[in-house]
């Protein structure tokens, strides 16, 4: 009984914090999503107008599709790069000192702010930017490439740059826990390097891949600032829809969009968790 009580007591601080700063705001958002709005105020109500508009608008569907598109492309790229980097660190670099040193090198860009890392691409990719000037001076192109900046290419490039580390870290972490004798056993049993990778390493790395995936997918789906800056405001994702609504004081509509986005992301994560048991990892 007392042990039980102590257990509750130990869990209480975190529970209270989560209740106050996670659960309560979400409940508030759900409530507000049913409210009404005039041009400059919101009033308590219980109406489905916000949701009706959301599901009735072709643009909203398009924007949700664009959000999934960004998430999917970025996921594939960050996974490929992240897995390769982690594999190199975990299995090719032999000494622990070098592993740690190289891992830290990976994190160096993250000592600056997200926004700065993103914006620094703009002068690089611009019409008269370094990339175009270099390509022209090499004679590869005659005209500056317009699609380098303010395009989906730029958005995805920035996303991959910003979020690959979130893939590297958990995958590297799981790979480091793989017992190297398993790899030796695979080789002894006659497996080729590729077979070892597919049949031993990837299955054992799945929890790490899944954690990285959750990071990347939630970050990309919830983003609005990267899309705004890198597309020059010309593309939209759900985050921008919400931020536009907030800018125009349409809080209930923003809340409804946020609720739908939250549900979508939770469903995506729910589906992913059906495939991999990440509890093994934690």
């Amino acid at each position, binding site marked *: 009984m007392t042990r039980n009580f102590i257990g509750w007591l130990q869990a209480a601080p975190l529970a209270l914090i989560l209740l106050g700063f996670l659960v309560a705001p979400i409940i508030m958002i759900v409530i507000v999503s049913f409210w009404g709005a005039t041009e400059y105020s919101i009033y308590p109500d219980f109406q489905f107008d916000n949701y009706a508009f959301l599901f009735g608008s072709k*643009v909203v569907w398009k924007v949700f599709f664009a959000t999934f598109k960004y998430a999917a492309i970025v996921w594939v790229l960050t996974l490929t790069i992240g897995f390769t980097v982690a594999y190199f660190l975990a299995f090719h670099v032999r000494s622990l000192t070098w592993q740690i040193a190289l891992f830290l090198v990976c994190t160096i860009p993250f000592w600056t702010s997200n926004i700065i890392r993103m914006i620094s691409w*703009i002068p690089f990719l611009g*019409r008269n930017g370094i990339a175009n000037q270099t390509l022209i001076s090499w004679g590869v192109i005659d005209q500056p490439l317009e699609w380098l900046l*303010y395009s989906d290419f730029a958005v995805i490039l920035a996303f991959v740059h910003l979020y690959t580390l979130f893939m590297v870290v958990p995958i590297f972490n799981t790979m480091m826990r793989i017992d190297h004798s398993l790899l030796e056993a695979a080789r002894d049993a006659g497996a080729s390097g590729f077979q070892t990778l597919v049949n031993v390493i990837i299955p054992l790395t799945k929890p790490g891949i899944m954690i990285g995936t959750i990071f990347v997918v939630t970050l990309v789906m919830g983003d609005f600032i990267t899309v705004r800056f890198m597309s*020059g405001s010309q593309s939209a994702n759900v985050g921008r*829809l919400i931020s536009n609504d907030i800018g125009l*004081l349409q809080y209930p509509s923003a809340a409804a969009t946020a609720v739908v986005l939250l549900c979508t992301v939770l469903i995506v994560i729910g589906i992913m968790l059906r495939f991999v048991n990440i509890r093994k990892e934690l």
Partner: protein
Amino acid sequence: MSKMRYSRRAILKGGAAAAAASALPAPMIWAQEIKDITLRQFGTGVSNLNDVATKVKEDLGFTLEMTALDSDSVTQRAATQPDSFDIADIEYWICKKVWPTGNLQAMDTSKIANYDKIVGIFRNGKLTPESTIAQGTAPHTVGFVDGPGGTSFADNETGWMTLIPTIYNADTLGIRPDLIGRPIESWTELLNPEFKGKASILDISSIGIMDMAMVCEAMGEIQYGDKGNMTKEEIDATFAIFTEAKQNGQFRAFWKTFDESVNLMASGEVVIQSMWSPAITAVKSRGIPCVYQPLKEGYRSWGGGLGLSANLSGMELDAAYEYINWYLSGWVGGYLMRQGYYSAVPETSKDYMSENEWGYWFEGKEATGDITSPTGDVLAAAGETRDGGSFEERMGRVACWNAVMDENQYMVRKWNEFIAA
């Protein structure tokens, strides 16, 4: 309260009052107490300048706290948080939205010393007696109410003003003459395929829609009844034209902040775009040629003013009137005019500008020496003239005022669709 009868302003006014001041101890008390007064002003970044607050402290003795917000937040705050401010520095179209909430109080024009010198645009809508009144939310249409408690706007000078006008300008397109290399004369050029991938428009719906309307009208595609108050059909037609242009790759980017517009222009990503006057100044001060191009269809204009919170009373209210009188007395006007804006009482600003500055900024004359910004950057050398010319030439050719439409919410949704298209 009784000591408040001797307001500092009244005393400064005349010699008789000055004699009274030396005889009575009250002004001293006022001088002491005024130091404790803090007026909280909020508004858009345009005129919420720290230099103004510093100068107020110096000249008037009380403290002015400035908060700068974007226009959406300004509207919201004025409408929903009347206790959070004493003075609202808002645009006239915002006033149209906010006044019905009753959060602002009308001002007695007889307490405004320079009221008679305020330019006609803000009083009867006419710059000169022959001027025609432009479309949109023209300042004088929301400038007056019937009395202290009036909630609906009056159509003549009633003596009770909603906002005391402070700052205004005529906006047009900014261009890079060095990259375009030919004269630009019409708003239609924004959608000219020649500038495919090199044009931009601002992503602020209430202003962007006006620029769009100027373009569509200039193209002859749409005849608007009132650009400042479009019908749903007019809104749809406008967005149809711009969505098509967007999908054809006409626009390089859309900008939302001042800095973005400067960077787009300075880097050469964009050669023609909607722009604000100080942004042109910022590009020029980097040594890059940039022109605020006058166009034959006229300007899109905007104006702002100071409104008093309904909660102001007593000593604070007197201080607020004193601040407004000080605002119109010239120093701020000179400061703003050196950035390319106009003051509501231009003649008082003249004393705070050099003859060269006054000639360049207001009269459209050739500069006789270097023209510098308030921060010291050289904006024009001797012999250059201001884009668009004199005050009368620029403000006399206003085609429409920034406005808020009856169909605003519909327009905003369409705007969101345009961005996502």
